[in-house]
């Protein structure tokens, strides 16, 4: 039988010891280093690299995880060429330092050596509830514990970690890494109540009453519907759900030899498409209604997908999914687009080319056009929002109710600050924690 499992093993190997030392010794140890300033969590990159070079791996790991409680995950999933590595001064005169790989090496050391790097603070007798145990929630929880607050995380899923645990493909981020980070937070005394959906298993009111502050870090929701005919046929998937299956269930052979189309060209689309290839699909196409220029996936993701053999069809808009007699996807009807005038986002708006409809034979269609918002929950908390985007004070991380704070993907779009990335979620979690601490301390 085919062994799909190995397709999902982590693609990148850990740096070999000599490789890591040689690379660490190449770092200039810049002052007020651009790489550090480009890291959303402000990891002191030169410092952690210097420590690797001096043989102080524990100090190195601590530097990283001190600034970024999900530093092991980030070393794997950060778009480093856009962040730290993109800012490395050596870009101009040599090759940038492989910061992400070095960070991975140091945090791997921490995972392999059971050391306690952090301690909880002197108890303050204050209680904070965190709704959602993704990177934002975990990051906030850890910082709040270090500051002495009592912290309870309410997490809907069976395990904490959020998209790190369930959403980012295993061959980039094995679940074990995310779960190790969860464990570190737990070891500090954070109470993580899994399988507990706020708004269902426990009410927002209870939280507001039982805790001194509530932090909402529920991220975003599933992939929204396309709004075209045929979305309910078998063979149509939600990209996030599809990826989650590959991380939580035994790998299925049902995709072997199938032709698949992924709709959308963001990070999720890339992950879904490469997962499909690794699940055995014979042809995987990403279709996108704009062009390469407008797509939100990073260049390195685009390259990765191309290497995996994913095909890209630009200026292609799906209009209808057609099924066979058994209600299974059979064809996708699309229309050719062209770029018109710029829209509000500044990108040129795609408009259909007249009479350009065409059909593609396909077995699997995957929706990957973004994520929906947790409007119900936001409203259950009684908070102001703008079509699902929480209203937020981006200094204090307070929502319209000043006992309630928010961070991470759930506030994506409501602050100037940061992309929807793990590293931004981690930083926002930290900042929200300090804001809560400040509020509870006065």
């Amino acid at each position: 039988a085919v062994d799909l499992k190995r397709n999902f093993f982590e693609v990148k190997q850990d740096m070999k010891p000599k490789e890591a030392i040689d690379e660490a010794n190449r770092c200039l140890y810049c002052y007020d280093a651009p790489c550090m300033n480009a890291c959303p969590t402000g990891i002191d990159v030169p410092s952690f690299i210097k420590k690797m070079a001096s043989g102080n791996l524990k100090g190195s790991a601590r530097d990283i995880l001190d600034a970024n409680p999900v530093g092991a995950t980030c070393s794997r999933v950060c778009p480093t060429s856009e962040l730290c590595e993109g800012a490395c001064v050596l870009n101009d005169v040599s090759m940038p330092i492989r910061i992400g790989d070095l960070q991975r090496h140091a945090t791997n050391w921490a995972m392999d050596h059971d050391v306690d790097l952090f301690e909880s603070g002197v108890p303050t007798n204050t209680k904070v509830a965190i709704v959602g145990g993704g990177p934002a929630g975990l990051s906030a929880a850890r910082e709040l514990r270090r500051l002495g607050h009592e912290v309870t995380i309410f997490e809907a899923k069976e395990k904490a970690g959020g998209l790190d645990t369930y959403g980012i493909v295993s061959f980039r981020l094995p679940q074990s890494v995310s779960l190790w980070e969860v464990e570190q937070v737990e070891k500090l005394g954070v109470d993580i109540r899994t399988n507990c959906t706020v708004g269902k298993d426990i009410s927002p009111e209870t939280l507001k009453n039982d805790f001194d502050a509530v932090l909402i870090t529920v991220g975003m929701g599933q992939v929204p519907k396309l709004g075209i005919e045929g979305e309910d046929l078998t063979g149509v998937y939600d990209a996030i759900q599809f990826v989650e299956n590959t991380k939580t269930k035994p790998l299925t052979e049902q995709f072997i030899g199938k032709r698949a189309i992924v709709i959308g060209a963001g990070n999720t689309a890339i992950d879904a498409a490469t997962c499909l290839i690794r699940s055995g699909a014979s042809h995987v196409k990403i279709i996108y209604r704009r062009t390469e220029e407008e797509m939100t996936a990073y260049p390195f993701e685009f390259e990765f997908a191309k290497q995996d053999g994913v095909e890209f069809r630009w200026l292609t808009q799906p209009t209808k999914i057609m099924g066979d007699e058994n209600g299974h996807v059979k064809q996708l009807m699309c229309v050719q687009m062209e770029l018109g005038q710029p829209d509000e986002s500044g990108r040129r708006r795609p408009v259909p080319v007249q009479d350009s409809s065409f059909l593609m034979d396909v077995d699997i269609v995957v929706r990957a056009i973004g994520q929906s918002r947790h409007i119900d929950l936001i409203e259950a908390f009684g908070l102001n929002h703008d079509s699902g985007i929480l209203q937020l004070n981006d200094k204090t991380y307070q929502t319209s109710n000043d006992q309630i704070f928010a961070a991470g993907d759930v506030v994506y779009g409501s602050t100037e600050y940061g992309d929807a990335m793990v590293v931004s979620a981690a930083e926002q979690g930290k900042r929200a924690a300090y804001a809560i601490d400040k509020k509870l301390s006065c």
Partner: protein
Amino acid sequence: MADLSVNLAGIKSPNPFWLASAPPTNSGYQVQRAFEAGWGGAVWKTLGDPVINVSSRFSASTFNGQKVAGFNNIELITDRPLEVNLEEIYETKKKFPNHAIVASLMVEPKQEKWHEIVKKVEAIGVDGLELNFGCPHGMAERGMGSASGQVPELVEKQTYWVKEVAETPVIVKLTPNITDVTATAYAAVQGGADSISLINTINSLMGVDIHSWNTIPHVSGKGTHGGYCGPAVKPIALNMVAECARHPEINIPISGIGGISNWQDAVEFMLMGSTNVQVCTAAMHHGFRIVEDMIDGLNNYLDEKGLARAMDLIGQTVSKYQNWGDLDLNYKVAARINPEKCINCNKCYISCEDTSHQCIDRLIDANGKSYLKVREDDCVGCNLCSIVCPVDGAIDMIEYPSEVAMTWNERQSLLGKMTIGEETVS
């Protein structure tokens, strides 16, 4: 979290990392920044008779693309007015009462000169004094620095003069440009020093510019010998520290200096008998922040070793440092190559073949793969192959403990008893 504080002859500091007397301790602004960064103490840039410095001053060697393997300077002592320095010392001590501030001093070898400066400096409040008998250039022409530091009698006499008036501990800083450093160290002890520090810089010329044929550095086309320091001098410094530490009559604490760049170096100096360490080049290369890893690394190391105090390290290796004649001639090591780890670069082969004992064979295994094997009988255990090997663990030096340990001295005394012929028993 181990206790990192140390006490050098009564001078206490929160950790063993001090800045040596040099450009980094040139002013109050700098020393205060250093203390903020975490340094435990600072020896102020040497105060003394007014001098003028030249431009340019420093140079450094690059080793295989890595900068500042060694560092060289033709700078003298401070050229700032004494009063300004004293005022800044006062300010700094006030702001950082728990950090060590030691004043480095150098004046002409005259009793009244020493008395004058010691009194002035102690009046404003310092934790100790360091007598700079070590600058290898410039000052020597005026009878100062190494010119006195190279003469044991002068070291003793001047130390004595200082001790006549000093109320704080006196550290004597030794020059390495000397045939036998224990002679001057002993002279310092005789003069009443509370501690010695070593090493100052080594006479050197960094290089010649092969294009302009000027020296590096040069002052208007001319050069002079400078003082060498930085990572390259560490083994020289460590040896001098060890020689003093093991000397039965040099029984005052040692402040180790010379090429210390990180916590591992500091641990080595402490094991070899230093109570604390002083750093110059590493700080000049990277700024004050390097102390952060020094502190963190030392702390993690002590934790890992289960040691509660940094001071527990001091001198642990001293008793293992002996005369060549007391080494066991019958102890043997031999190289063994681990084919699993070997990457077949053949560096060990060629170094042994060309420049050691021709005892590594290049062989082909049953699968046609080439591998290397040491003929252990022929191997003298020189270590060369393992030194040049780029892969950790590819070459092990296997120990063959001796059944009967015998040193050269033991052998010679035996031979002495048995010698026949014209030679007489010595």
